[in-house]
């Protein structure tokens, strides 16, 4: 108890050390809170501004997406295609890259049959056997 009383009793130029220390701690805390609050306020302002910009951008993005979808409306594309003579590909004109060699061979055969001579499959360059 005496040690504690001695500690509390210590003073410097008439001011008790414990009181001076407490005052300093208090001032540091007040200043810290003020600075933190001020910094947070600035950050919050920045965040609000950026959030607002993001919201606006999102709205514009959605609007643009809707406009793109509208421009790609199938019926509209059909009309535009028809104007320049485009249309769906006939199923006879569809094929896979793997079938190209066979298509070429058949076409060549048809030609040569007309001329009266048969062409072996190997005559088609690159044709898988």
């Amino acid at each position, binding site marked *: *108890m005496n040690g*504690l*009383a001695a500690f*509390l*009793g210590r003073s410097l130029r008439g001011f008790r050390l*414990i*009181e001076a220390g*407490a005052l300093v*701690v*208090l001032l540091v*805390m*007040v200043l*810290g*809170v003020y600075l*933190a*609050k001020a910094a*947070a306020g600035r*950050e*919050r302002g920045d*965040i609000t501004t950026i959030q607002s910009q993001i*919201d606006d951008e*999102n*709205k514009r993005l*959605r*609007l643009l*997406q*809707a*406009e*793109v*979808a*509208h421009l*790609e*409306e*199938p*019926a509209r594309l*059909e009309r535009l295609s028809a104007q320049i003579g485009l249309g*769906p*590909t*006939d*199923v*006879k004109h*569809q*094929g*896979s890259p793997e*079938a190209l060699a*066979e298509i070429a061979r058949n076409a060549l055969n048809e030609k040569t049959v007309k001329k009266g001579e048969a062409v072996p499959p190997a005559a088609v360059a690159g044709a898988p056997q």
Partner: protein
Amino acid sequence: MSDLAWRREPFGWLTQAVWALERAFKKARAADQAEGDTRLRIFFLLALFATGFLFLAIGATRCALFSHREANDYAPPLGAARADLVDRNGQLLAVDLTHYGVYVDPREIWDTAETVRVLGQALPGLQSQRLDKALKSDRREYLMGGLTPDEKAKLQDLGLPGVSFEEEERRVYPLGSTAAHLVGFSDSSGVGLAGAERALDSDIRNAAGREPVALAMDLRVQAALDDELSKAVAKYRALGGIGIVVNVKTGEILGFSSQPDFDLNAPGKAPPDHMFNRGAASVYELGSVFKAFTLAAGLDSGVVTMNSSFDVSHPLELGGRLVHDFDKGDTTLQLWQVFTHSSNIGAAKMALMAGPQRMQDYFRRFGLFAAAPSELAESARPILPRQFSDQTLAQIAFGQGIAVSPLALATGYRSLLDGGIYSPLTIKKVQPGAQPQGRRVISEDTSAKILQLMRLNVTDPKGSGHKAEVPGLLVGGKTGSAQKPEHGRYGKNNVSSFVAVFPAEGPLSTDRYIVQITLDSPQKTPDSMGFITGGWNAAPTAGKVIARIAPFLGVKPQPGGANAPNPIAETSTDLGGDTQ
């Protein structure tokens, strides 16, 4: 006892601490150290306040630094009240967009005449009565909504005093009338009223601001279906048309078209007839497409076999009425020919052999006696005969005397072609690997036979569906043409249908698709040779749709598929069978 009593009290430790302190004060006083006693009390109070302030400071710092993060946790989702609606590939179908409502406050207006003039020019859609009423009011009034950001900016640039704006969400359908009856629409308060907007209303609301809701529909398939169906309706001068494309394995509706359609952005301006969903909300007597169910019932129950044959040389008399065949030159038809020649007499005889109870049971299990089980609220109940006599049974066998929705027909056909399992079709995208649950109606063997018959009906030169053939895509199908009841009796117009499946060859586990076309009251055209039956209008339309959508569905043309031999015809022509 008293020493232990404080331990049981809630704040016993605090009481004990205060008493200990008090005892220290008393001891200090007893030792004649009054100054020490006072200082101790002051120190104690100081420590107490310092601790309190410390807690407050920590709390304030925490609030200052981290409060915005916590606030964001509670922020409502930004943007839409309804989630975006997209097709299975993410193509936008419906979206909530920010629009602006215009408000006017007469108390802030300096020059009323000028305001009326400028607003009239800037807002052509504004009703003058509404503006007059708002200007005579003594408070801020709503003028009109739905202004786009550009329109709002132009009006705002005019700098009219007393005119202000507020944001409002509006449902926009960027594809206009595409898939109008499938997508549906919602009202201005964000409540789904029709189509998927109504069917999936709670899903769409719950997903708002998070993720889009995906339909099973494939926009590419839908576009081809819409295009070919509208061309067919125009060509055959039909009152309307219905097209449905279904993935047989998953039950997903990949395309759903009802013509005429309407612009989803202005449903109020569309004629009521255009807004009517003919595919789900309307019921038709669909004719011979029902024969597939009749034959499936006969085969599955063992009443007939693929070798059975039927005498169709004379009309069948039932209840004083005669059942005729469209092709009147036939005498004896084998089972597959009953299907490909679409013989009413053969189908009716088969149904009579099976009996009313068995046929009713099968038709019920095919879902034809109830509304199609669908998310679409428009799904209509069928019109059934009051009683099942021999006459009504014979009629139902070839698709008359019973009216069902095209959606119910597609659901039934899917069970015919999916190994005999009946389960609902869905407008929602099914996740890969998900297996729809259903009930068995017919055996896998019967399902395979129906698939063969449908293929034969297209490949056989005398098959009613041969005009649906697309080289290499192995199309199968069944035609249907039924007279329309008009003024209490069957009239001249008919409802023509074709239910196609492709590819119709290969094992049951093959990915295959149903394309169902129905035309309401088609008329004769030069290339239909004066006919208005399904084989001349609905079948070629289905063929055109299939040719266009096959690449999108990954179905590649098979070389020589069109000329494949007919296994049924080759084996059964030599087999006599019993003539019915």
